[in-house]
């Protein structure tokens, strides 16, 4: 079994996207991916999450790896390994910016030592767990062979020897204005106490402090570099050994290891992220993915919303949906602020997350492998776009319908809400007719009830309220006929914005 990539079984390698898909913002997937990658910036993971797969086999390959990583022991080993490599790279990145010869070499030596330690621990770790995925089994074989190779073994032994020689050096610097001198340390006593006493009288009890924090980060100026040069002259042997070592081992990180280190973070980041969400009692599952349009998801939820609520006491409301042939379009109506938009987003998010091979929100799911998602959400007016808002909306929808195929997923959210009622009905019906002709999967959020019963392809779902208190939303979206009730005025009252309430609230 040859190891190829932890993200792709060999056949299906796919080029990384360089830009976030256009519908990301509307579906709040940008927030999800931002949150997932927030602590992993240096890996540049976003392209992985921006690249939906078109191949079911690769999706299942990822499911296997993800399941292995759900084991805590393996996850801990992978994370420990990653942390060490982060530091290795930080050292090497620093080396490129350094000028002083032995300073550079000193840091290269540190990075080699750490790299060797990381590899040994990783091998040990992989041996301790029972791996099942094709991806990890192949990777384990690869690491075993690499760590036992002569290349690696020589690297490790020499690094340790050189380091021990340098640790024994001790020297003194003598400084006057504009000049300094270096020699071996000769056992002089601590002088700082006396110096402190001399300057005691300058002390003042004023608020602004210019006392320096003398803790020094890594780095070296040209004076320190010069000092190091002199130290090397005083102690030539250990430095010669260092020169020899670095000459022999300029490129020491294995390519396959380097690529693995980045790719595995795709899984680590996602699992870390959903762990916090699961903590709220929410479910994730590995969905069936394929060409069936009879999709379903039970106890699904908006991942962006769940993430935003992780640190609060608020409960996340889960919703179900299913489509049976010939149903294609879910028309969501009902009171505002009842979770309609959230439902539409959830539908889009679930399909997208499934397409990158990740577990999705819900207990059980079957999802459709789409060719593209198109979302139309209202845009704010833009001073730079002087086309009329309505014209702009119609033009954008036209653009979507030109590009969409039968295999696309469409999410329409409250389109034409800012035009006259008359126009909104006319335009919505005309456009929905076109979507039905296309036969694509679609979620359509609207306040126009009659859209929900246009044909056998439409399914009506309604956001619901508590029967005893119409101002209380349940955030449950259920299958039932649109009931024409709008709750705007009860909402105004809740916000204390009726005529009478405002009169009472404004006081001089």
């Amino acid at each position, binding site marked *: 079994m040859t190891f190829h990539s932890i993200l792709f079984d060999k056949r299906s390698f796919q080029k990384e996207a360089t830009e976030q898909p256009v519908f990301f913002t509307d579906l709040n997937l940008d927030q999800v991916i931002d949150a997932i990658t927030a602590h992993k910036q240096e890996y540049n993971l976003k392209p992985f999450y921006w690249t939906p797969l078109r191949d079911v086999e690769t999706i299942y390959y990822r499911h296997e790896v993800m399941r292995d990583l759900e084991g805590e022991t393996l996850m801990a080993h992978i994370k420990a390994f990653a942390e060490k490599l982060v530091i290795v790279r930080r*050292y090497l990145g620093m080396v490129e910016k350094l000028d002083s010869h032995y300073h550079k070499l000193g840091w290269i030596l540190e990075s080699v030592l750490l790299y060797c330690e990381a590899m040994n621990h990783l091998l040990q770790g992989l041996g301790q767990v029972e791996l099942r995925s094709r991806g990890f089994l192949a990777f384990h074989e690869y690491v075993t062979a690499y760590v036992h190779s002569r290349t690696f073994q020589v690297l490790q032994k020499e690094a340790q020897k050189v380091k021990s020689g340098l640790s024994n050096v001790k020297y003194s610097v003598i400084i006057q*204005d504009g000049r300094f*001198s270096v020699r071996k340390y000769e056992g002089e006593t601590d002088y700082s106490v006396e110096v402190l006493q001399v300057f005691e009288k300058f002390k003042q009890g004023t608020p602004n402090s210019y006392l320096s924090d003398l803790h020094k980060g890594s780095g070296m100026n040209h004076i320190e570099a010069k000092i190091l040069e*002199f130290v090397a002259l005083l102690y030539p042997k250990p430095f010669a050994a260092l020169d020899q070592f670095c000459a022999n081992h300029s490129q020491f990180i294995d390519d396959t290891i380097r690529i693995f280190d980045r790719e595995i973070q795709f899984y680590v980041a996602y699992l870390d992220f959903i762990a916090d969400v699961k903590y709220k009692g929410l479910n994730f599952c590995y969905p069936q993915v394929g060409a069936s349009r009879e999709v379903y998801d039970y106890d699904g939820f908006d991942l962006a919303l769940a993430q935003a609520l992780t640190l609060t006491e608020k409960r996340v409301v889960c919703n179900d949906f299913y489509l049976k042939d010939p149903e294609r379009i879910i028309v969501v109506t009902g009171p505002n602020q009842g979770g309609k938009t959230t439902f539409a987003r959830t539908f889009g998010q679930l399909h997208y997350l499934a397409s990158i091979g990740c577990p999705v929100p819900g207990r059980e799911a079957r999802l459709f492998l789409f060719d593209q998602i198109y979302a139309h959400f209202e845009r704010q007016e833009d001073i*730079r776009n002087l086309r009329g808002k*309505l014209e702009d909306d*119609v033009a954008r929808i036209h653009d979507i319908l030109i590009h969409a195929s039968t295999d696309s997923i469409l999410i329409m959210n409250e389109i034409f809400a800012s035009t006259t009622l008359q126009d909104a009905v006319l335009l919505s019906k005309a456009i929905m007719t076109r979507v039905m002709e296309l036969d694509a999967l679609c979620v359509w959020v609207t306040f126009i009830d009659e859209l929900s019963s246009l044909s056998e392809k439409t399914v009506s779902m309604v956001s619901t309220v508590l029967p005893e208190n119409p101002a209380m939303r349940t955030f449950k979206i259920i299958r039932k006929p649109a009931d024409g009730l709008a709750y705007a005025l009860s909402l105004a009252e809740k916000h204390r914005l009726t005529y009478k309430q405002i009169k009472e609230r404004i006081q001089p």
Partner: protein
Amino acid sequence: MKVFLMHPDRDFKLLGEREQRFPYRYVFPISTTQAALVQDLELDTLLGVMAQGDEFLFDMAKQAIFSSPDSPEAICYRQAVLKDCLKNPAIVREIYRIPIEAIENKRGGWLSILSRYPSGILSSAVQMLEMSVIQLRKLKHIADEYAEKFESEGFRRFFAMIQQELTDEYFAEVEEHLKILKFKHGVLVSAELGNGNEGRNYVLRKTNYDNGNWIKRLFPGTARQGRCAKKSPHYSCTLHPRDDAGARALGELKDRGVNLVANAAGQSADHIDSFFNILRLELAFYIGCLNLSERLAELGEPIAFPDPAPASERQHSFTGLYDVALVLTMKKKVMGNNVNADGKDLMIITGANQGGKSTFLRSIGLAQLMMQCGIFVPAESFSANVCMGLFTHYKREEDATMTSGKFDEELDRMSAIIDHIKPDAMVLFNESFAATNEREGSEIARQIVRALLEKRVKVCYVTHLYELASGFYNQQMENAIFLRADRQRSFRLIEAQPLQTSFGADLYTKIFN
């Protein structure tokens, strides 16, 4: 020493404090209603032109806008100072350069390395004090030379104060202190090699040689500058005299013990520094105004000093009022509007999409803000009463924080406005309450507007809710004015009753076929 160019009787007080970390923005807590105002009026566009890429000017203009005085007299005090600035732009910019130079010297000199090199703090603090004296002398010179050209109360007081406070005796005293703040010392420090061969465990050591002699033994007088001489068992190096960085680095190693001395010098420098800061703060607003006036002049747009009326009155009349944000974005002249809404509490704007409604509404809002903080306004003429607070309520994109639905979110923002609003304030509505259907949206809006008017709040409302607009029109109120956008009239608004319109069918045919 008080600057007092923004207010006749007090310092320009900042809302919030300067951020401690670079790039040192002057942020202040902004309420959600204020944030909405910034966004809805494209205030950043205006501020951006005032700033001309200078973040400090940007921040100060923003500070000024959000701390406007509310009396016509205070506004006129600033207008007078600003008129002086427009008359003597070169002199004002020269004065402004004085604190800027002082601050740049300070940054370049020592603040950037504050936390790392105590020896740097010490020598640079001295340098900065020396620089400060030079800048103060320049300021005195300008006051002596040009004070006569200025007429405003603000500038006349400022120049008189400079001439009185910055006497020769004062300069002599400062320079005397600078001589004392020198420090020379030689030290011995021991160390080991840590990670990356960097020195670690630095310990200041007492030399085993007799005091004074050991330095001579290590640095024989014949050593040539810039060259390193080997003298077993020592390796010595003398820095090139212009190697300032090297001197600082040596200082870092050397003066781990002079931390306290550096501290005292830094504090002395602070005293003069704070005066420059205030001068810069108070002039920044006027420099921003100069930048804006110059940009508008380039674009051929007029400016006018507005005539502010007390908040209790109802005035709003103007000619050639244009949307300054649009002009600055499009970089070309636009058509202005003429309206006489004196005595009106309610202004309802209806009409065609793309007819210039939003632009008009923004021009109303921006002119009000500019007038109230003392800037000229983008118009040929303009008079209005001062408002006790300006609020915007615009239709928004889906709430990115997902705490509420669209309509709920609109009501939530409206409620936040009601929390802050007082009589004699003004609210600008742009297509508000359209996130539900037309009938319900109109009803809710009607109730809100009616209540606001009865509480003496001025309302400007852009809407396509025909039911709302026609409802108010049919009441034939004396204190209401109805404007309509008409595409045929090239973005100019006319006084006219609302019309019911429908473009949907035309648009669909045009785009889909």
